[in-house]
Every structure is written in C-alpha cells, then in structure tokens.
C-alpha cells in the first residue's frame, strides 16, 4: 500500500508547471510509486524481443541500441504507412481540449501530460518534425520536437501511465482513439527494449504455457478440482468439468486469475454452477487457459501471437463455438482485432444457446459469445431457478469494466443479471458508468505494486463514485466483469472506501442459483454466512468457512 495518506494524495495541484512542456525532464527517483519496473531480460529473451538487459529507469544510461533514433524513426514511418488510422489521429487533432479533463490519471494527479491531448502530443510532436513539411521547416514553431533521449524517457513514463481505457475517446469530437496512440507508442518503445515486466512476464508465460501465471496443465487440473471440492462443501453438488475434451459443443475460456486468485475464484464457481444447472456440453482447455491478452499492451504482432491459441484450440477440440468469461481486454481483442489478425474463424458455427435457441448474430464473425450475454438470455427466457434473497447480505453496485463497456457495448446484460439475482442494486452516478465508466486505474499492465501511488490516483474518480453509493445506499459490494478489476479494485476501495468488497457478476449468479439436489445453503460461495440462516450454521458450513 502507498505510503501517502488519502489526505496527502488529495492535495492535487492542477496548475500547469512553469517549464515549457516541450523540454522534458523526469526525475524517476523522485517519482517512485508512479512507474513500473522494466521487463526482466529472461522474458524478452524467451520472446525474441530486442535489447534484453538489466536496467532501471533511475539509471542515467538506459543502455539503448546506438542507432535507437533511427529505429524509432523507421518504426514510426512503417506504422504510418500500415495504419491509416494512425496518420489520421496524428493529423486531425485540433487540440480543442474536450478530452483534457476526462482522463482518470489527470484527475487524480493534476499532471498536464496526463491530459490525453498532451499525452498524444508527446508522439505527435515527433511526427510533426519528422514527417510533415511545416514541421521539418519550422520545427518548434510548428509544434515539432527532436527525438532526444529525454523525450524517449518521457514516452516511457507517460505511455506506461495510460491504461488504454478509452474514456477520453468517448468525448473526442473526431473520435480519435487515444488508446491506439498509446499502443503505437508502446510498439515503438518495444523496438528499443523499453517495456515493463508486469506486461512482458505475462506475455512470456502466456506464450509458453497458455496463461499469464505460467500454470501448467497438471496445475490447471489441480486448481479446478480444488474449486470443485469447495463447491461441493458449500452446495453438496459435485461437479467434474471436462478439460481438453474433443467434441464438446462449447469451449469455455476464462482469465487465468479466475482459477487462481481471490475473488475471481468465486466467479469461477459461479460459472461452474450455471453450466451444471443448464446441463451445458462444454470443455475447459489447459492450453487455451487464458482469456487475457497482454499483447494488447505490447504490439499488434503480440496480440496475434497470443490470441491465436484460443482459435487453434477450438479447432483442435472440434467445438462449435467459444464462450468467454468475465475478462476485460480479451473482449477488445476479440471484438475489434481478432477477425483481421487471426480470422476468419470459419471452422466454427455462429454461437447458439442450446437451452434457449437464441443465435448470437453479433458474434457471427468471431464465434465467441460473452458469458453475460449468454446468462442474460437464459434469464430472459426463464431458464434459471434463482433465489435472489441469498444475496441479501450484499448491497450491490456495478462497475462497467472499460473494455466490455466501451469496446463491445456490454452495458445492459450485466445489469439485467444483477437485478435478477439480487434484491439490492444501486447505480453509481451517470457520468461514471456505462460508456463513461471510470477505469480501475491499473489496466494495460499497470496493476503492479511499484506503481501503487499512480493506481490510487488514477482510481480516485472510480472510488469516489463508489464512496457516493456506499454513503447514500450502504453499498458494500462492487461488482465488475474483468479480472484486472478484480485484482486492482480491492486495494483501491480498501484505500479510498473501506467497507466495500469486490466480486464478479457470476459469483452472485452462483449464490442465487437453486440447484437440483443441493443441500440447504447456509453460506455464500465465499463461506460467509447468509442472512437469516446465520444463527444456525450447519456443520458443513463451519468446515467450509476456513478463510
């Protein structure tokens, strides 16, 4: 946890510094807590990425290749030719400032270089000088800058201080996708070996074992079996999901944290109860064992390299379609990049619910349906037996996870589910939810401990909205549909709004589902006593509530 108190962090100075923004100088030592550690050389070596070495941002010499300026220049030239969107985003911004105060990092830090417009200018100024006529002739007068080592260090600081959440893009009158500017800047940084370990270790692990955590098949199986034992203790229902089973109708893919870390494991239990409830013919895969794709935070080539496994595995197993769990940025990859990178997935069928017959035409190209769409459809067709009173100990709000909300439009489905499976649901203020949702502050690979001060600053607008419903409605549970959220929101709310816990949506589904043959539930999936039955715990519940 950060060393500074909330009162200290709230002393935010929005006055811009006197120094000309064009002359950067970042004191990394003084700014500890707001940047991430560089990638360990072993991870870059494993992936075949350039310039693996030991270094620290606090070093004077970053051990760059001798011709690093040429590499970046050529890299930018290539990308301007490949991506027309990048060229448009570089040229079209009129610096109107509509985005300026929309970034959670600007709101929480007051640093003007966290205004999306100025963050983009860090790259755009180089583009102007090197690739536009006026910039070549007039230089600084036309907003052009020379690419110096200090500028590159500034890129490292600010492009790894953007969570690619795209809230600013919602407000841009030209629709500039500022996350794509960050993505390109990170691609360029990667060309000279400037990357962060919290991104590159998951990428290397994912490439090697299929998931961020480096979980091997025997461990995958052991983790799943343990969670099934827990479920049996709580519900009396013994579930044995299949792994790597050929011929299943559906391949189900989740973020790896859902079968490893609290509170994601309770969401995972919810998925398993749901599938048992409806008798879904599905399989898990120990290879396609990660929905998340940290390639999105690295480069287009890396997105493709990691996304490939989901479809390769679907083909190998011969499933009809893919169901995806409560993962965040996976859905940006699947919904907006997958088809051009790895598509077409023409060996799969358009997803069709075997229970309701609903065909998910919106997934006609990717063949992959979001579990919230799938479950909301089951509920809308009256296919689930639910007892929402089992969530009466929870007063619930919903954090729209950035990517499912803004990159995919999953807005109504989770709300429909939550209003059905629990009796106490409250919305946060309008300008903090749906398309305008505020980031958790730790996405895009920034959810590490060394960056905690920046996470707490960036998460302040979200936490502030949670505080509002906590104080007004007694909200004690913040739900979300993203594994990064489930990892980053707990320390955030512990710091700004103590008394609020974090969960996935399907954890509450699992609590409410009335299963055939189940024992009387006395606790929720976490082992916490249910309201009304707390006075008479059964022996099984006492055994299960060991944490």
């Amino acid at each position, binding site marked *: 946890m950060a060393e500074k108190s909330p009162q200290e962090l709230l002393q935010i100075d929005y006055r811009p510094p006197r120094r000309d923004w064009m002359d950067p100088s970042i004191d990394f030592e003084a700014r500890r807590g707001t940047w991430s550690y560089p990638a360990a050389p072993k991870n870059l070596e494993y992936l075949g990425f350039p310039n693996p070495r030991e270094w620290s941002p606090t070093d004077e010499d970053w051990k760059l290749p001798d011709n690093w300026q040429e590499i970046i220049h050529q890299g930018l030239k290539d990308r301007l030719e490949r991506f027309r969107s990048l060229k448009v985003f570089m040229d079209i911004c009129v610096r109107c400032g509509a985005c300026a105060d929309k970034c959670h990092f600007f709101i929480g830090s007051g640093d003007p270089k966290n205004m999306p417009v100025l963050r983009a200018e860090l790259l755009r100024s180089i583009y102007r000088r090197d690739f536009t006529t006026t910039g070549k002739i007039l230089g600084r007068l036309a907003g052009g800058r020379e690419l110096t080592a200090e500028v590159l260090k500034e890129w490292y600081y600010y492009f790894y201080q953007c969570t690619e959440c795209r809230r600013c893009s919602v407000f841009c009158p030209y629709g500039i996708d500022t996350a794509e500017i960050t993505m390109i800047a990170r691609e360029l940084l990667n060309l000279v070996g400037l990357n962060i*370990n919290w991104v590159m270790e998951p990428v290397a692990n994912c490439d090697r074992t299929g998931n*961020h955590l480096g979980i*091997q098949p*025997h*461990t995958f199986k052991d983790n799943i079996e*343990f969670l099934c034992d827990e479920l049996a203790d709580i519900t009396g229902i013994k579930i044995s999901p299949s792994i790597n089973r050929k011929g299943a109708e559906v391949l189900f893919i989740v973020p790896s944290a859902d079968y*490893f870390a609290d509170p994601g*494991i309770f969401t995972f239990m919810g998925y398993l109860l749901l599938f048992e409830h409806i008798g879904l013919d599905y399989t898990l895969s120990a290879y396609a064992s990660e929905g998340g794709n940290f390639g999105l935070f690295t480069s287009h080539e890396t997105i493709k390299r990691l996304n490939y496994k989901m479809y390769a595995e679907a083909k190998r197993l011969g499933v009809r379609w893919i169901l995806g769990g409560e993962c965040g940025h996976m859905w940006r990859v699947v919904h907006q990049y997958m088809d051009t990178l790895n598509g077409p997935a023409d060996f799969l069928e358009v997803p069709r619910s075997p229970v309701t017959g609903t065909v998910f035409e919106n997934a006609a190209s990717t063949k992959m349906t979001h579990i919230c769409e799938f479950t909301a459809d089951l509920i809308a067709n009256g296919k689930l037996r639910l007892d929402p009173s089992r969530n009466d100990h929870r007063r619930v709000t919903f954090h729209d996870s950035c990517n499912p909300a803004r990159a995919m439009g999953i807005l109504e489905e989770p709300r429909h589910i939550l209003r059905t499976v629990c009796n106490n649901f409250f919305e946060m203020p309008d300008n903090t939810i749906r398309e305008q949702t505020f980031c958790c502050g730790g996405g895009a690979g920034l959810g590490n401990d060394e960056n905690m001060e920046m996470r707490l600053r960036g998460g302040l607008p979200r936490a502030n909205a949670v505080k509002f419903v906590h104080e007004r409605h007694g909200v004690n549970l913040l739900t979300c549909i993203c594994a990064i959220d489930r990892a980053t929101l707990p320390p955030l709310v512990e710091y700004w709004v103590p008394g609020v816990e974090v969960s996935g949506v399907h954890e509450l589904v699992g609590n409410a589902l009335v299963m055939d043959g189940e024992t009387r539930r006395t606790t929720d999936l976490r082992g916490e006593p249910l309201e009304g039955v707390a006075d008479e715990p059964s022996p099984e519940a006492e055994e299960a509530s*060991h*944490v």
Partner: protein
Amino acid sequence: MPTFTYGDLSIEVDEDGFMQEPEQWNEEVAKALATTEGVDELTDEHWKVVNYLREYYLQFGVAPMIRKLCKETGFNLKKIYELFPSGPAKGACKVAGLPKPTGCV
C-alpha cells in the same frame, strides 16, 4: 540485478526482494529472507507455511491458491498475516523462495 546479502549469504533478487533463482533456496536462505519481512525468528508455524509452499511449488511450478494454502495448513488468512505481515503472496512466498505471480492478480 539487486543482490541481497545477509551474513555470508549473497543471493540475486528482483526489485521487490524475490529470489531470482528459486532452485538455490534452502533453509538458511529462508531465515535470511524472513528478516526482510520483519520476521526475526521462524517458528514451527512459519515453517509449516513455508514448507507447504515449497513442496507445492516443486510439484506445481507456481504458488498455490491462497484458499488452498489456508485449507492445507489449517491457518486462516488472518493467522497467515500474523505470521507474515506482508501476507501470503508477498511475504510467505518470498520467504519460501517462490517467484512473484504476475498478470491479472
């Protein structure tokens, strides 16, 4: 690469003090690493946690789920925090010489 030294002992660690080469772990290393976690003496209860983590890691290649750690050792989370003030992942795993988990965790 930072180096952690304690007495005659010298091991390579990452920025947060986690061992870089977990195969070089032994009980002396554990005792030395424990001092960085504010644990001056490893009691039988500490060793129960450390040994479980170590055995699990050798078999499965990662840290166990915290829920599993609690169940197998019989210690609840509060007790683990009492033993290792930084908690199971950052404290106990560091002493047991496990690498730091990364990703959506």
